[in-house]
């Protein structure tokens, strides 16, 4: 079991560019979560999929951020027109998908917007 896989581990973009982050959940897990970690705000929930369907995106910024899960083996988080304040570590987690199941986290993608 390789655990949750996230790629790339580090990404540097210029202001205004697009960034796409990838997550591969643990095989057999039907729920995928995205979080963001910064020094100032700590760990914040962004969005959640179950069985590939978007269930809760209440933590997603309303503009420029979008997430998809086209198949059960990967999810993407896309940030359009990146801004310096988007710099953070973006974490993906997966769980079995049963109600309130334990979540397991990937290593994160450190995004730096210059």
């Amino acid at each position, binding site marked *: 079991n390789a655990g949750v896989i996230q790629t790339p581990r580090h990404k540097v973009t210029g202001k205004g560019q697009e960034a796409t982050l990838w997550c591969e959940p643990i095989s057999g897990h039907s729920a995928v*979560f995205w979080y963001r970690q910064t020094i100032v705000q*700590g760990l914040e*929930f962004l969005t959640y999929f179950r069985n590939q369907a978007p269930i809760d995106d209440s933590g997603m910024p309303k503009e420029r951020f979008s997430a998809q899960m086209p198949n059960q083996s990967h999810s993407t988080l896309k940030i359009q027109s990146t801004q310096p304040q988007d710099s953070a570590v973006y974490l993906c987690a997966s769980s079995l998908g049963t109600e*309130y199941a334990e979540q397991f986290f990937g290593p994160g993608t450190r995004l730096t917007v210059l």
Partner: protein
Amino acid sequence: GQQVQQSPASLVLQEGENAELQCNFSSTATRLQWFYQHPGGRLVSLFYNPSGTKHTGRLTSTTVTNERRGSLHISSSQTTDSGTYFCAIDRRYAQGLTFGLGTRVSVFP
């Protein structure tokens, strides 16, 4: 205000000392999960503890859900215990975890 409050914010220990980390939450929680993060490392789940007491090695997690509190006890600390410990709750009717700001633990020889 912060829904999950952890204390202390930081802790310095000499190797061999015990420590108790506290977690208090203001929302109705169905589960409490403790994580460890080494600087630059991934979040590692330590305990998934809805209620009661659980033990793993030198770590003990106690959750009293109806009193909205939890604790993590580290016994006989080691330098390898250094890092940040996060408490997170599952809120009822919400699936995303709500995290505290963490307790930064530094253990010196």
